[in-house]
């Protein structure tokens, strides 16, 4: 090996340092440092159910508290959403209406989703009282965008109260109609 080629090779090897720098520099798109330990096989999972203990399945049929709706009446459901994954993961939810039988009962309903609320009332006047409203759907419209994200530590859960109100102005054609109101919960971890 000639002295010249040895020197050329030695200088080329300096590229390793440039390469290191390039990778980290170009990788610095978010401005948030992320340590190596963040490469993990952590799981992100949500469970829903009636209580903290039973909120482990991916789907849950919420029972309705209160009677079938007349104009001016309201009923409510409670669901517990739980982080069943291994890392802290914020969640958000989106409302979804599935109408059935050609009627638009879901659209006509006013729907509130609250946290920290308790069921109150009975019969045709069951409401979610107190707490903080996380989502509102007005009568005549569909659900808007997803809720703001809410933090949820592993194993932690949050109880949500969903209130369905049929306004007095409900169309006569909605008598006897049924609709399915779903809350799709999604938790997402960016790193």
């Amino acid at each position, binding site marked *: 090996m000639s002295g010249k080629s040895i020197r050329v090779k030695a200088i080329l090897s300096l590229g390793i340092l440039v390469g290191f720098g390039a990778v980290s520099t170009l990788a610095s798109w*978010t401005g948030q440092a992320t340590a190596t330990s963040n490469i993990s096989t*952590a799981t992100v999972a949500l469970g829903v159910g009636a209580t903290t203990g039973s909120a482990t399945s991916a789907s849950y049929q919420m*029972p309705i508290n209160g009677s079938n709706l*007349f104009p001016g009446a309201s*009923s409510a459901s409670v669901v517990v959403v739980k982080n069943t994954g291994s890392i802290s993961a914020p969640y958000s939810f989106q409302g979804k209406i599935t109408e059935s039988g050609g009627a638009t009962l879901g659209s006509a309903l006013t729907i509130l989703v609250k946290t920290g609320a308790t069921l109150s009332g009975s019969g045709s006047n069951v409401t979610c009282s107190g707490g903080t409203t996380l989502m509102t759907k007005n009568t005549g419209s569909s659900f808007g965008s997803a809720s703001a994200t809410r933090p949820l530590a592993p194993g932690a859960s949050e109880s949500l109260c969903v209130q369905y109100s049929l306004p007095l102005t409900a169309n006569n054609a909605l008598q006897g109609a049924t609709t399915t109101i779903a809350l799709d919960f*999604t938790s997402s971890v960016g790193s």
Partner: protein
Amino acid sequence: MRSQQTAQDSNSSLRPFQRFLLNFGAGLGSLCLLLAVLAMVIGIKPLVFVSGSMGPGIPVGALGLSVPASVEEVNVGDVVSVVNSQGERITHRVVEKAPEGLVLKGDANPVPDIETYSVEQVDHLFLSVPGLGYVVTWLSQPWAYAIGLLLCGYLLYIAFWRKDSKPDNSDEELHGSQSAEPGEQDSHSRTAGRKKLGNLSRTIGGLTVVVLLGALVLQVPKSETTHAAFTGSATASAAVQANIVQPATGSLACTESRVLLLTTATVSWPAQQLPSGARLAVRTKVDSSTYRYTSLASGATSTDYGPRLNLIGLITEGGAQTMEVKLLVVYTTDNKDVTESGSNIGWVSPVADSPGRTIVYHPGFVLARDFTCS
């Protein structure tokens, strides 16, 4: 460093492991330089996948390479990298190009991302290599820089200084190359002044390079890897049912009462159990297509059709006519009394199933009209 000393016995030849290190360093360094140039010229971005939402195709720890692309150039099915509203980089597959932005979904996720990414520029992933992300991340740590520095320093040493040193003073030589003390030159065995000068300039040049690179290494941010969001989902649903307004119960009775020459027909019914918020109303069909409503007090069990009744639409002359009367259960949209025209009626019990009967209207002048039971 022992082996170095013995290797120095021969100026023109290197030990096998030194050759290997030189070749390895030169190869790796060239690759890095090439990538760095590519990155700067065409914007190639290395992406390290730190979560598994694109699995199994792109597992955790994969290294991806991406090039900038405009949204127009991206097709459904492409894997693109964007920065979400939380400032996190997400690399997912395009499932829809909606007017409001790109809808992305991780291959391993059951649902698309919550956020619709309203971006004009994305990074289009064109290559991914499983596992390589671990290597890159590992290499991005400070101590990996340190090893790289040591390797480069050693290679520079054997390339530039080793040849000029004598077998017996390698310790001083090593010392000099590390500390760069000016007095280093004095401890060398004397050689030609020209060679001394060359040695000095090489030392200064080499140190400058090393210091510059060291500064660069200290300047660059710590290893940053990002993205590929993992998603968990669950659904809670409820079947909401609207009620049906049941018709009033019982049947309508009619009794007549006479004051002077005029007759009043009184329509009555049994007491009703009404659902919450509902009202009773009587609907009278005044002609073939016109109905008039009479609001009733809650708990009412009868209503009178007498001479003073002045329903709009009632004709004031002509022969007797029969009218259909229906007892209805209604909800008003304003929660007030039913208007005469029924304009504020929302829900109403089915008319066909509601109790009804007919009465007879006898037109005449204002006070001379009356009603009888049929």
